[in-house]
């Protein structure tokens, strides 16, 4: 008789259980939390925050978030769902990822159900270390020269490149290409590949910068628009060459000309307006001209503007009274390296005439690239207690931060020059810091800003020649001086 009862009991227990369960499910059933968020975040190096992760629970249970054990060593997960690095990753030190992290959301409902979210974190590079640079160095007696490659990260100086038995050389660069330019009565430009260390020694090509049957035109700089188009500024000529840096023959190198003849000073029998500097921004080429006469007196300085798409000069209408298209400046004598661009502005630095003592005409002026209006940012007379220092060049980091250096001649014990570095506000013209990084006792010959906004300063002190690299966030030297053998001058940066 028992088995029959058993059979009859089981179905009854099942029925009772089902009834009980049904009663619970409508009010007591637990569901695991849901977890959402970016599954493959990319985090900028030197930052902590990874992302925000959200956990929800349909049962309104309390949720506890946690990380897997391995991730706990590197990451912090707030209960708010904010995930962050414990230590900011440094891309340049190899903290690139991917970092695999599992976030678990566990509720406190019946059964403590949980959900996992697997995410993969990678770190993105931000340019925060100084670039590799190349510097032209010159013997103090102007008898010879050489080029050195500078690696600020490893603090290495590799010298002995492009040695010449003459000194009138300078450098230009575009991405990984370096152009070694021989100037007065040399008239030659040579291209090198600077990315591969092993190939830095071998010239890719070398071309003359003279037209047939012409005399020396003193090439000053090569300003690149792209890999296949650049402008060769020639200080001794009113013709700017348009060149193709990818040309494999000299016949294909020069592809056109820009004409600056209208700017030649009336008393300049060499037919040159002395174009000294150029910069390209927003598809336009800006060329600063000293406009010297035969006695090297600088006339009214002008900036000519060319459309790089059509290579035609743009009528700026900056001055209704003159008969040229360019922009007249108030400052006099823009030197080499006197043009820099930042956002929608072009900044021009002028030294004033070499024989003048008037500080007010040594200026930094700003050209508005929208309407070509010019305003003074500051002049050398704004430097407190300055009586004899003239502004040589400037760089602009942002609308609020820029640097310039001013130099003065000292006649004792022997003739030499001493330069000081200043921080200024390009918008207001206020000089913020004097003698940045303890400058003010040595000769400065060049300043340049790399893509990480480190300021490189060439110190042409023959007793301790070298390049200082200054962190513009702190205005202090980021490393010890990179020592060269000869006096350093123009610096260019190698950017891949």
């Amino acid at each position, binding site marked *: 008789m028992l088995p029959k009862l058993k059979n009859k009991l089981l179905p009854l227990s099942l029925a009772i259980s089902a009834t009980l369960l049904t009663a619970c499910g409508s009010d007591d059933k637990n569901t695991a939390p849901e977890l959402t968020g970016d599954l493959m975040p990319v985090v900028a190096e030197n930052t902590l925050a990874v992302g925000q992760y959200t956990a929800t629970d349909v049962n309104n249970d309390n949720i506890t978030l946690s990380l897997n054990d391995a991730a706990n060593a590197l990451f912090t997960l707030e209960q708010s769902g904010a995930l962050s690095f414990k230590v900011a990753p440094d891309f340049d030190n190899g903290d690139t990822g991917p970092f695999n992290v599992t976030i678990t959301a566990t509720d406190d409902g019946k059964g403590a159900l949980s959900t996992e979210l697997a995410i993969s974190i990678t770190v993105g590079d931000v340019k925060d270390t100084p670039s590799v640079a190349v510097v032209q160095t010159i*013997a*103090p*007696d*102007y*008898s*010879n020269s050489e080029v050195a490659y500078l690696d600020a990260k490893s603090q290495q100086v590799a010298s*002995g*490149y492009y*040695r*010449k*038995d003459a000194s009138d050389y300078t450098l230009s660069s575009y991405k990984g290409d370096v152009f070694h330019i021989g100037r007065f*009565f*040399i*008239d*030659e430009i040579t291209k090198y590949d600077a990315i591969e260390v092993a190939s830095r*020694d*071998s010239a890719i090509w070398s*071309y*003359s*910068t*003279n*037209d*047939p*049957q*012409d*005399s*020396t035109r003193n090439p000053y700089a090569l300003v690149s628009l792209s890999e296949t188009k650049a402008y060769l500024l020639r200080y001794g000529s009113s013709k700017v060459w348009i060149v193709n840096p990818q040309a494999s023959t000299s*016949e294909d190198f020069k592809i056109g000309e820009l004409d600056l003849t209208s700017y030649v000073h009336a008393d300049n*029998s*060499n*037919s040159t307006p002395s174009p000294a500097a150029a910069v390209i921004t927003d598809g336009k080429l800006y060329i600063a001209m000293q406009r010297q006469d*035969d*006695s*090297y*007196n600088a006339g009214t300085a002008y900036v000519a503007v060319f459309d790089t798409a059509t290579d035609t000069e743009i009528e700026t209408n900056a001055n209704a009274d003159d008969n040229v298209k360019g922009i007249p400046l108030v400052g006099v004598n823009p030197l080499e390296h006197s043009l820099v661009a930042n956002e929608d502005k072009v900044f021009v630095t002028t030294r004033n*005439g*070499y*024989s003048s003592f008037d500080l007010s005409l040594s200026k930094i002026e700003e050209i508005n690239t929208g309407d070509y209006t010019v305003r003074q940012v500051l002049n050398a007379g704004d430097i407190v207690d300055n009586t004899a220092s003239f502004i040589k060049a400037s760089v602009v980091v942002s609308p609020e931060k820029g640097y310039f250096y001013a130099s003065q*001649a000292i*006649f*004792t*014990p*022997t*003739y*030499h*020059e001493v330069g000081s570095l200043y921080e200024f506000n390009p918008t207001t013209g206020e000089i913020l810091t004097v003698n940045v990084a303890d400058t003010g006792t040595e*000769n*400065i*010959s*060049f300043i340049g800003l790399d893509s990480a906004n480190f300021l490189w300063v060439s110190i*042409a002190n*023959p*007793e*301790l*020649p070298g390049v200082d690299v200054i962190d513009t966030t702190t205005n202090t030297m980021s490393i010890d001086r990179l*020592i060269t*053998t*000869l*006096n350093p*001058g123009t610096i260019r940066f190698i950017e891949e």
Partner: protein
Amino acid sequence: MKISPKKAMTKVKLVTFMVCSQLLFAKHVLANSAEQATDVEVIEVVSNHEFASSNYQVLRREDFIDSSQSLSDILGQVNGIQIRQISGIGNPVSISIRGSSAKQVQFFIDGQLVNDSQFGSFDLNQIPTEQIESIEISKNQAIGTGSTPIGGVIRINTYNPSDDTNKVSIALGSFGYQELNVLKNTAFKHHSLAFGGNYLASDNDYDYLVPQSFDNPSQSITQPLRNNAFEKISLFVNDSAQIDQHQLRLNLTYNKQDKGLANYQNNSPENSSNISMDSLRYGLQYNWLSNIEYLDSIELEYYHDTKDELYLNSQNDSQQNTNDYQTTKQHVGIKPSFTVSSLTFSPFANATQNIFTSFSTHNGKPNECNGISACDIEAKQQQLNVGARFSWQSKTLPLSSYLLANQLFEDNSNVALNQTSPSKEQSKEQYNTQELGFNYGDNKLKTSINWSQGVRTPTLYELFGDRGAFKGNDNLLPEEAETYALSVKYHDTISLMSFDVSSSVYQQSIENSIVAIFNSSGTGSYTNVSSAELLGLELQMGSKITSALSVSLQAHWIDSDTQSEYVAFNNKKLPGIYHQQYSAALSYQLSDALAIKVNTNIDKELYFNRSNQFETNDEQNKTGNPANRMVTDLSLHWRIKNYSINFTCANLFDEHYQDLANRPAQGRSIQLKFSIEDI
């Protein structure tokens, strides 16, 4: 009573002038009296400097006159002397004695210091060899009297024969070389009159690798060099007279020359740049031979020199820049000589005034004096040398010694003439120099030891610049050097073979080397930048192996080290000199009439610049090597009676090396010279 140097000089000039005037008048009267050309008194106005030092040697006329060589070629064969030049006749020549720079060498012609006070330079080849009687060479020491130089002294004694001589010579050679010499000397009873002329021309159109050819700058092609011609006329008159105790010598030289300046970058046919020069130099030396006890003689001298250089820079028709430099130099001196027993005492005093003026134009307009362009200037230098030389000769031993002390007073000034408010800059300095030497030995073996403290005073250009972008330096110190030298000479004859062996070792410490230094803005000035230590060894051997065959071997080593606070110049070798030199010369008399000479020079370890860096295209050796060269010259000389023919082939194997301007030297050249004497 203390007299200022200026007044003292004026007085001396006046007295000398009056004395010389009287003597010239007397000479003129005597010359018109009947004289017999055959009855000639021996004339030796210029002292015979027997300084018995191994640092000193004399080359006589007969040693070099029959060759086709220039003065620089002759000096380049002397051990310890280096000659480097910019290729082409008429271009600058640099001389170095025992590692010195060219400015550290004093160049005298008949006792007159030729060194330019403005730039410190001198034209070594300004005197044709036909006009030279002898060449005195002194290393690290003065010749006779005066301030002690750092490098040494080259002194040219102009033509001064005692016999009647007539000579014509013609030479032709490579690259359009032409030369004509005419020389005549007439010996009278009391005086000898020599005059002559030299015409020299060369196209200098040797083949040159043009870096960027004019018609196609993309091509480097070899072309004959354009606008590099040279032409020169040189006239001279020398008159030497001796009447009783009076010796008088007058010399007068006039030079006119033109040199084209090539465009070495593109060899442009439009280039007409040129430098022309006119100079007139005359001098008077009077020697009174005393019969007063202890007083041997009194020597008076006066020189006057004017030079006008016009430099034209014209690369094309639209450019005509000129620089006109005029230099006037006057010199007067007195030197009595006393002998007491074995001691000779020669006090001396001489005064020199140099005036340099410049005038520059650009396309016909005078240059502006605006602090950038070079200003028109008048620079003046007045020097007074006062000193004494003591010589002592032992009467019992083959021992002699000498001591020379000199005080130099210098007054320099510079005025920018075309400045709005001309300002005058001035500097006054005093320098003293000394030398001491001992010699021991006879004709077979002679040993010398010498010490000298020499100086090279800054030139006017180094002191004041060009008043434009090249600045002056008020604090410029003179270059100073202390030198020790020990030398040994041995002469002997074994069988019929005579030979000479000599060696010299020297050590020199130089301070305050003056170098042009430039700032990043391109302005410059001369600055004392370094000191240097030199250690040198000269070895030479000459032997007359047979009556027909002579051999000469030479070697010269220099070890140099510069010290400087300038990183680029510290622990470097001196630039511009070969640190090793070897030469071998062979002369063989093929017959009574015909002789052949071959000499080979090997020069090694030349550094072109103070940084000791080299431009090189050698991918295997990026640092490059010091420059070397090996040059062989051949000459054939044929002489019969009054006729001689000389054939020279310089750089026989066409060796390629860099010249003074660090450009390829001109290569092989030949020259043929035909001479007739006693026409």
